[in-house]
């Protein structure tokens, strides 16, 4: 999606010359949220699944060249060239980095067969095929994707164990109070939530595999407990795809470091869009960070594209917008919606309902240094969320916000 939104916003910013979008997946851009939800439950055929999630393109985004199934493996930003996996070199005048994320794997020993991640359409198709009634599923990781996958599997009749690892369900984005309520909600739907224990090893079915092969038969936890599984889903976060940029003197410690215009520090004219971009959060304050939300590609493209076009045309870079992040998660037909940066809060305030019973409707406000920086609602109609969004928006960008990149 980052590449698509970047191309659309480049045209919207007045770029009339060549735009080439290079992507390693073979599919044209598609929407990922359904991959852990509706599409995982009932994808249909591969063609039907792709049709259900393929992204429509703005009619004004004309003359875009798409190089699909083409991974970029290296870049020489000084020479302004890219190298594809096929060894072909592409020269550019301006570059948008939008290579996104890949799933992190649980870094412990054991067999790999039978273990799944959820990032690409192929992942969802393969995983769906294995989720049958009574299938024993272990989900490792209790962020949005882990919880959604667990909920979808439970909805298909699987016997699900959720290994939370560090922190409770959705605790990092939602905080402790709502996390405890989400755990209760998952448990009420038959999901066994294991708190505070990390996976130390993947088990194999001893004696029934040939050397080097072998299907994962479960996990061992740090206290020695073993949990048997027919299917394991690893949902332990993501890594930004930046290896191809090595050797160019960029800060790649966590995505690509940019300024508030999404201009990449140490290279020009280069910008970054989407989950791979690390940039200052001028609303909540604090150091530059990546924002892994669905709206991020669109939000960042609207800032990065005008900045890139201005740089290429020798114009003044326009004052950048300050996005207001928003996110959602759907589990068991209950919607959680968030706005702002709740993960950065030092205090919360319950506005409505009871966060320990989120399915009955609750709203929570998040503060940092005494200022409202976020709000989350669960099981409330969208107009409540829009109301809280307005409050967060009006609490604005603080005076003295650090406008430097780091």
């Amino acid at each position, binding site marked *: 999606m980052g590449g698509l*939104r970047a191309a*659309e916003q480049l045209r919207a910013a007045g770029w009339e010359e060549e735009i080439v979008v290079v992507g390693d997946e073979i599919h044209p851009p598609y*929407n990922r*949220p359904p991959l852990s939800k509706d599409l995982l439950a009932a994808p249909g055929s591969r063609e039907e699944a792709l049709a259900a999630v393929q*992204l*429509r393109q*703005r*009619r*004004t985004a004309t003359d875009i060249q798409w190089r699909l199934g083409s991974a970029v493996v290296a870049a020489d930003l000084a020479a302004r060239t890219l190298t594809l996996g096929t060894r072909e070199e592409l020269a550019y005048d301006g570059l948008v980095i939008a290579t996104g994320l890949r799933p992190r794997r649980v870094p412990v020993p054991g067999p790999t067969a039978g273990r799944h991640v959820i990032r690409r359409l192929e992942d969802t198709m393969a995983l769906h095929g294995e989720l049958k009634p009574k299938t024993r599923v272990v989900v490792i990781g209790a962020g949005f994707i882990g919880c959604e996958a667990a909920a979808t599997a439970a909805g298909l009749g699987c016997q699900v164990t959720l290994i939370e690892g560090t922190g409770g369900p959705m605790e990092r984005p939602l905080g402790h109070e709502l996390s405890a309520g989400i755990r209760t909600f998952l448990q009420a739907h038959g999901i066994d939530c294991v708190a505070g224990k990390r996976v130390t090893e993947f088990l194999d079915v001893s004696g029934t595999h040939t050397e080097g092969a072998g299907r994962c038969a479960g996990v061992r936890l740090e206290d020695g407990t073993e949990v048997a599984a027919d299917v394991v889903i690893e949902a332990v976060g993501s890594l930004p795809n930046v290896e191809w940029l090595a050797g160019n003197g960029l800060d790649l410690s966590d995505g690509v470091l940019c300024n508030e215009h999404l201009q990449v520090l140490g290279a020009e004219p280069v910008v970054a869009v989407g989950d791979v971009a690390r940039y200052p959060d001028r609303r909540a304050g604090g150091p530059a960070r990546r924002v892994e939300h*669905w*709206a991020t590609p*669109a939000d960042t493209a609207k800032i990065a594209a005008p900045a890139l076009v201005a740089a290429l045309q020798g114009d003044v870079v326009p004052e950048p917008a300050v996005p207001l992040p*928003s996110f*959602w998660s759907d589990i068991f037909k209950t919607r959680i*919606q968030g706005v702002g940066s709740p993960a950065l809060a030092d205090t919360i305030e319950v506005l409505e309902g009871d966060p320990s019973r989120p399915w009955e409707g609750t709203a929570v406000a998040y503060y940092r240094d005494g200022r409202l920086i976020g709000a989350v609602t669960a099981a*409330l*109609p*969208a*107009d*409540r*969320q*829009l109301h809280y*969004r307005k409050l967060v928006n009006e609490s604005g960008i603080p005076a003295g916000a650090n406008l430097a990149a780091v």
Partner: protein
Amino acid sequence: MKTIDVDRSLCDNHGQCAIAAPDVFRMNADGELEYEATFDDGLLDEVEEAIDVCPVQAIFLKD
């Protein structure tokens, strides 16, 4: 004037359209979408934004 259509079978009442184009889309007190099917050309930018930010691509520009 331009026209839009919302596929109600896709609409999941996220409300992102109401943020992007409040002159055209709004969420009622039951949390459901209400919208103006025809709108002034001057609102086209906002409506295209709303089309983009709909998480389920339920909004279609017709003409």
